């Protein structure tokens, strides 16, 4: 290629890149400044019915634009990195394991959303300041393969203690607490139950009882667990998953079975609460507040279970039949204060890795 030609091509290319950038600037990114659009920053598992989002637009005149980035942890960290100059107006998806990190970084502007009085106090972890609003909650629990335990005529485990019994040797698969949120949740469940030091002894016993650790939920649930109807045929009948996994297993079955193929060990659960908040420096504060009100509205709350497989935060939101029929209400989930999680998360995960891996 001669130099003249190269120059011509260069000029054309630079022009096109610049044009692309201009189009990008002029078109989409104006969204934040446009008072008719409100931008929801969230993680990539956020989901809502299109019809419900349309209703919001009809009621308030605001169009919702969803901006997602990676899994829950990555999304929170992105929001922290871009604080003061946020990607949108409202952030949804910070849970109690990450809440302190978000609050310490001053991510949110206080706002008391309408309908908060219908949310149980136990979920309102920022009750004093209302920087974040609880939107949904779910439980991380050990799930079991009903068929396996029926065939073996063995009662499925119910509590954390049961898991260390010889009867359940080599049956459990869990996720890496360093890389997976159910993995971390299960570690926190044991820390809540056995205390700051006691959990280490528990994991030593669990390890002696043949717990297997894989990196992510997908492998644990689809490749190693024997009870999932999708995936390969794993040989471990116990897996760390969610209390909503059994309903999800039957959600799409054409003929509904009497029971889900999997059950939940109710004494092994850790409660995850997800929050939303108005981002500091939001371009559209008014729209953001309207969106927060909407996230707590009955209409949205009742839309939550079948879209994200978690429970609505509002007590008066009605659960779909799938959840009431196949789901398990967990009465005594373990919890830990967000500050305590923030303080111990890293050392605990390090200790856990050295003990278990």
């Amino acid at each position: 290629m001669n130099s003249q030609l190269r120059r011509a091509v260069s000029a054309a290319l630079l022009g096109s890149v610049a044009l692309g950038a201009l189009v990008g600037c002029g078109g989409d990114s104006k969204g934040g400044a446009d008072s008719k659009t409100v931008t929801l920053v969230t993680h990539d598992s956020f989901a809502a019915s299109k019809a419900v989002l349309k209703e919001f637009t009809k009621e308030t005149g605001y169009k919702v634009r969803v901006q997602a980035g990676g899994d829950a942890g990555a999304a929170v960290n992105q929001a922290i990195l871009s604080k003061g100059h946020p990607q949108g107006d409202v952030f949804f998806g910070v849970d109690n394991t990450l809440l302190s990190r978000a609050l310490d970084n001053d991510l949110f502007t206080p706002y008391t959303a309408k309908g908060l009085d219908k949310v149980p106090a136990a979920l309102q972890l920022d009750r004093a300041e209302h920087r974040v609003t609880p939107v949904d909650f779910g439980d991380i629990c050990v799930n079991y393969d009903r068929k396996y335990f029926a065939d073996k005529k063995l009662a499925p485990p119910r509590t954390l203690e049961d898991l260390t019994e010889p009867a359940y040797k080599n049956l459990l698969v869990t996720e890496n607490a360093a890389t997976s949120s159910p993995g971390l949740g299960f570690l926190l469940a044991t820390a809540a139950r056995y205390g700051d030091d006691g959990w280490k002894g528990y994991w030593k016993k669990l390890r002696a009882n043949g717990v297997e650790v894989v990196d992510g939920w997908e492998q644990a649930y689809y490749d190693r667990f024997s009870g999932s109807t999708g995936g390969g045929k794993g040989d471990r009948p116990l897996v760390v998953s969610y209390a909503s996994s059994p309903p999800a297993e039957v959600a799409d079955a054409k003929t509904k079975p009497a029971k889900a193929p999997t059950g939940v060990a109710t004494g092994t659960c850790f409660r995850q609460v997800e929050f939303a908040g108005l981002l500091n420096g939001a371009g559209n504060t008014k729209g953001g507040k309207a969106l927060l009100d909407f996230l707590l509205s009955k209409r949205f709350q009742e839309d939550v279970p079948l879209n994200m497989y978690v429970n609505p935060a509002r007590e008066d939101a009605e659960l779909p039949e799938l959840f009431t029929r196949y789901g398990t209400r967990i009465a005594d989930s373990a919890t830990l204060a967000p500050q305590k999680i923030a303080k111990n998360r890293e050392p605990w995960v390090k200790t856990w890795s050295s003990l278990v891996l």
Partner: protein
Amino acid sequence: MAVPLAFFAVFFAYPVAAIVTQGLRVGGQWRFGRIAEVVTDPATLDVLWFTCWQAVASTALTLAVALPGAYVFARFDFPGKGLLRAVVTVPFVLPTVVAGSAFLALLGRGGLLDELWGVRLDTSVWAILLAHVFFNYAVVVRTVGGLWAQLDPRQEEAARVLGASRLSAWRRVTLPALAPAVAAAALMVFLFTFTSFGVIQILGGPRYATLEVAIYRETAQLLDLPTAAVLTLVQFAAVAAVLALHAWTVRRRESALRLVDPGRTARRPNGPAQWALLWGVLAVVALLIVTPLAVLVERSLSGPDGYGFTYYEALESAADSGGTFFVAPMEAIGNSLRYAAVATVFALAVGGLAAAALTRKAGRLVQGFDALLMLPLGTSAVTVGFGFLIALDEPPLDLRASWVLVPLAQALVGVPFVVRTMLPVLRAVDHRLREAAAVLGASPWRVWREVDLPLVGRAVAVAAGFAFAVSLGEFGATVFIARPDQPTLPVAIARFLGRAGQLSYGQAMALSTILMLVCAGSLLALERIRTDRSGEF
């Protein structure tokens, strides 16, 4: 050279520097002490050691397995060759979670080999190495095979006529000609395996970690940016060392070659030895690449009531009734193809200009530039993704919410492939051809069109194929910047895989199969275009 340089400065160097600086500068103060701390941490050294040796072993194994394949694809003519060449590239675009789980179904506990011979490779290093061969086979076949097919076999024949044995003729004539392409392929496989992420996570279990995995954990999970920044620098240093080594060994070997139309060099296998080689290569491809892919297709078709298209139908109906989570498969295919096409154009323009500049010029500066172009392969997707976020968020470059970010990030990974496939071929073009044309009165444009373009046409097609495949399959950076209402196929697959239930899993498998078909179809179409054009000369 100005365009590629500007492109890299703005879309690579600046964002990465921004995120690294953020990690190392706390409250306006540089914290270089952190570097020493992290570097001397035994945990870091362990990770670095594992990263290095598994990459070396993976590269050696991939070359050993795939070089015979490159020969067979370049020199033999057999029915279905084009299709098979497209198929071996498919692993490249599949999300590692999907491909890894198919691979486990074959080699893991309760897998096919386990049932037949009791061979289990899950959680062993062998699984990682073989998976790397599975993913990178195409790199060697396409890069080396691309040049091999254009080498004039008569040169080797001439050597044999002059009395050289088959082996020594090959060693003295063909091998030196191929060396740059082999080195380029080895370099790319090395960089890929050095920065391996998904494969290590799935097949290695939580015990093994590469630097890439460590960077991801520190950045995305722990938000320990200082440590992540240091690890990023360590990875850079290692990659730079490898690139320097590569430049040093390859530099002097590239020479002008006689390139011919690949259509004329391939012939039907002749004699039992060649047939055995062909069948051997086909067997390896069948076992290592086609079987895991077939497992995926099988899973996508085995619905609750026996084989059928249940999951494919469910994809359509879910998109009609469902919420923002669901996206119609046609829409996801459209998004993927659109992004990948734009990314390929970016990558070809930037990579092509860079390769042209690198062919003409020499010197240290140019070598440094060559290395710079390869660095994105050695940089973790999360670093690039976060870097984009904090660097490109202010005017004049406020691209935070622009669709253009996705193809830009994808092109970053595509450019190295374009450069590495085009460079050996461009350098092999004999100067005298150009000079002769010029002497005969051809304008420079015409020289380029009539001399260079036909000779490098194939390399351009191979490069475009790579850039396209890489862009189709890119997940790490895309997931950070793609808008959720416009997911690409890999992003949509990850969403389905993230929830329980038979249907979700089946839908993920169905979408993966669609991704496979889209990839193979696009590559076949690209080859078709190339064949049409090469008919001209």
